[in-house]
């Protein structure tokens, strides 16, 4: 164990130093606008679950992210003279996305709060939405002032301005923070919270699309500097900020948001809600299943190869190789998959640009390799020593013995445990949704925000996951039967 600890510490220090160094390189003088112009694209990071700011809709059968934030982003890109690329991410991941240069800017109804200003730069405020409270219609007349919510539970998006404002301005209130607005609405409708603090346009959009909800103005007091939404950029992007401010000034001068962008967004909203049955969104789910299966399939193959390798390394005679294998297995099993996914995407992403899907596949594969290694090791351990002796007495090398005699038998013994691992992988792979990979969970959330329905998409996703795992388990049983001799 002593050696293990030394190894792990060594690896951690090496990684940290790597990250610190990279950080230095990136902190060079401001070439942000030039960089964007050079590559010809402006990459926008946004969390499209916040209508009418940004949300997902289907146009002629294709997924599209729309909303007035997106219109602003297009305007900025057009003014700079580059193409706009939209990257979907969790709201929580947006700041990290900027810091690691996965994205060039954030427009996601984000308030330029003092806390955020510590880590990123902001443009001027482009829209000044009031903070409202969304409540169940039946409660509309019960809650009129902020302190009507005293002693009760309310909801707000984690890390949002509404969250901190509610905390400061309502006495003795219990705030439930969730990452997704759709989940907050669900909490409201199921009575877990009595109100959800959110921006006026969003609150109105929900009330308009769901007759059981209503908007009340409890009189939030906004700090002058933190009002409204602004465009976020990485630190030291003065030239890029200046370019955005120029576009924003024009938008404000011409009142483009109220005159053009908001009506356009509302138009999509009505279109969206015209048919919000689950069947109508089958393409969303189909796409999600496709990605979930893709990630799982590749991770299983890579995981088995890596796992076999690690198991053999661990069973081998060479002490150093053994320590490497043990450290890897212990480290990967000892850290959450979620963190591994984020580390690969954001951490490794600082050195090499890894697309979200690839990052997800890499992280899940590396993770499953560690678990499969232990399964395989136990499988190899279960083979009688006599098998090795018989093969060696015939003159077979150790390698050949493993290949022809030991591993095929071990595989048969561990098949049920391996099958279990595959099924777990289908479910665990859902964690990649946090970096915006459009797997089944991600698509489920998209359907939630597109349809304003909370429970139906969850139910559909649950059934789909079950169908996937059940079919896989049947398939594995079939192969298990085939492996039995006689």
């Amino acid at each position: 164990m002593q050696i293990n600890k030394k190894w792990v510490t060594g690896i951690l220090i090496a990684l940290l130093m790597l990250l610190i160094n990279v950080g230095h390189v990136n902190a060079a003088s401001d070439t942000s606008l030039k960089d964007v112009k050079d590559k010809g694209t402006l990459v926008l990071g946004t969390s499209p679950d916040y209508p009418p700011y940004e949300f997902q809709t289907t146009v002629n059968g294709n997924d599209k992210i729309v909303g007035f934030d997106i219109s602003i982003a297009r305007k900025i890109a057009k003014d700079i003279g580059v193409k706009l690329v939209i990257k979907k991410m969790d709201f929580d991941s947006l700041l990290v996305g900027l810091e690691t240069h996965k994205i060039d800017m954030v427009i996601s109804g984000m308030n330029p709060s003092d806390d955020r200003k510590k880590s990123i730069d902001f443009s001027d405020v482009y829209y000044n939405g009031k903070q409202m409270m969304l409540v169940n219609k039946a409660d509309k007349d019960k809650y009129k002032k902020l302190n009507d919510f005293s002693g009760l539970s309310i909801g707000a998006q984690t890390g949002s301005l509404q969250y901190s404002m509610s905390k400061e301005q309502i006495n003795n209130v219990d705030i439930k923070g969730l990452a997704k607005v759709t989940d907050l609405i669900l909490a409201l409708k199921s009575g877990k919270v009595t109100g959800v603090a959110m921006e006026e346009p969003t609150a109105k959009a929900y009330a308009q699309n769901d007759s059981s909800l209503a908007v009340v103005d409890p009189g939030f007091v906004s700090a002058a500097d933190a009002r409204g939404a602004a465009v976020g950029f990485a630190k030291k992007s003065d030239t890029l900020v200046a370019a955005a401010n120029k576009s924003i000034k024009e938008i404000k001068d011409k009142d483009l948001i109220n005159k053009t962008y908001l009506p356009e967004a509302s138009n999509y909203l009505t279109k969206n809600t015209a048919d919000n049955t689950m069947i109508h969104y089958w393409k969303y789910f189909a796409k999600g299943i496709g990605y979930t299966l893709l990630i799982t399939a590749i991770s299983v193959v890579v995981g088995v190869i890596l796992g076999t390798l690690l198991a053999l390394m661990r069973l081998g005679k060479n002490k150093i190789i053994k320590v490497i294998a043990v450290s890897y297995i212990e480290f990967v099993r000892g850290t959450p998959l979620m963190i591994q996914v984020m580390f690969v995407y954001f951490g490794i992403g600082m050195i090499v640009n890894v697309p979200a899907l690839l990052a997800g596949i890499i992280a899940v594969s590396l993770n499953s390799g560690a678990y499969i290694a232990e399964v395989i090791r136990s499988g190899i351990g279960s083979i009688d020593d006599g098998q090795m002796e018989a093969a060696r007495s015939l003159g077979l090398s150790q390698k050949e013995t493993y290949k022809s005699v030991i591993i095929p038998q071990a595989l048969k013994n561990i098949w049920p445990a391996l099958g279990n691992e595959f099924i777990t992988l289908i479910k665990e792979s859902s964690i990649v949704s946090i970096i915006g990979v459009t797997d089944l969970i991600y698509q489920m959330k998209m359907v939630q925000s597109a349809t304003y329905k909370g429970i139906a998409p969850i139910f559909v996703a649950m059934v789909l996951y079950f169908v996937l795992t059940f079919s896989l388990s049947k398939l594995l049983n079939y192969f298990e039967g085939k492996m039995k001799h006689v």
Partner: protein
Amino acid sequence: MSKIIEVNKLMKVFGKNEVLKDISESVDKGQVICVIGPSGSGKSTFLRCLNLLEVPTSGNVLFEGKDLTSLNEKDLNQLREKMGMVFQGFNLFPNMNVIENIKLAPIKVKNMSDTEADKIASNLLEKVGLADKAVQYPESLSGGQKQRVAIARALAMDPEVLLFDEPTSALDPEMVGEVLKVMKTLASDGMTMVVVTHEMGFAREVADQIWFMDQGYIQEKGRPEDVFDHPTSERAQDFLSKIL
């Protein structure tokens, strides 16, 4: 006659347990040696030291004049193919059918073509009387049949010596005969064999020499009629009086 196996001052210690204490013997080409003795006397360990499945604690094992204990992994593999071994527990590969069990080593070690290996394997199955079991899996065979396949598997490498580690001890009594019959044929064909066994009748009939082992030493050796009928050591007398 030329010596094919030579053992010098062989010692094997497991932890504090001295299983083999100073054994120096040799086996001539074409000789059949039967090693007998009470349980725990070190017979199996001795046999397993001959092809280095157990690494001797000290001493040397020479095969055709080459010291096995000084060889690297690759050269050792090459010499091992010349020393077939038959185990008490058969150790057939359950993931392969009978003929695949036999063909594996010729194909993988001798780089034989599949057709060539197939021919050899079929002949050997014929020889051990199991031609009709070629495509069955070991699971479906009786103990005696398994052991005969194991012998065929060892023979497929065309070895100079066959080592038998209590080949009939795990068998039901009615199956012992069929295995011994095959072994007798091999002996009469001139195969060099070292057999650890409790089958005294077989030993008496087939062996050129009986080695009686006890407490890590070869206590007595000689022609079967001498050892069995006129044992000189007290231990051999005691052992034989119990089992004969």
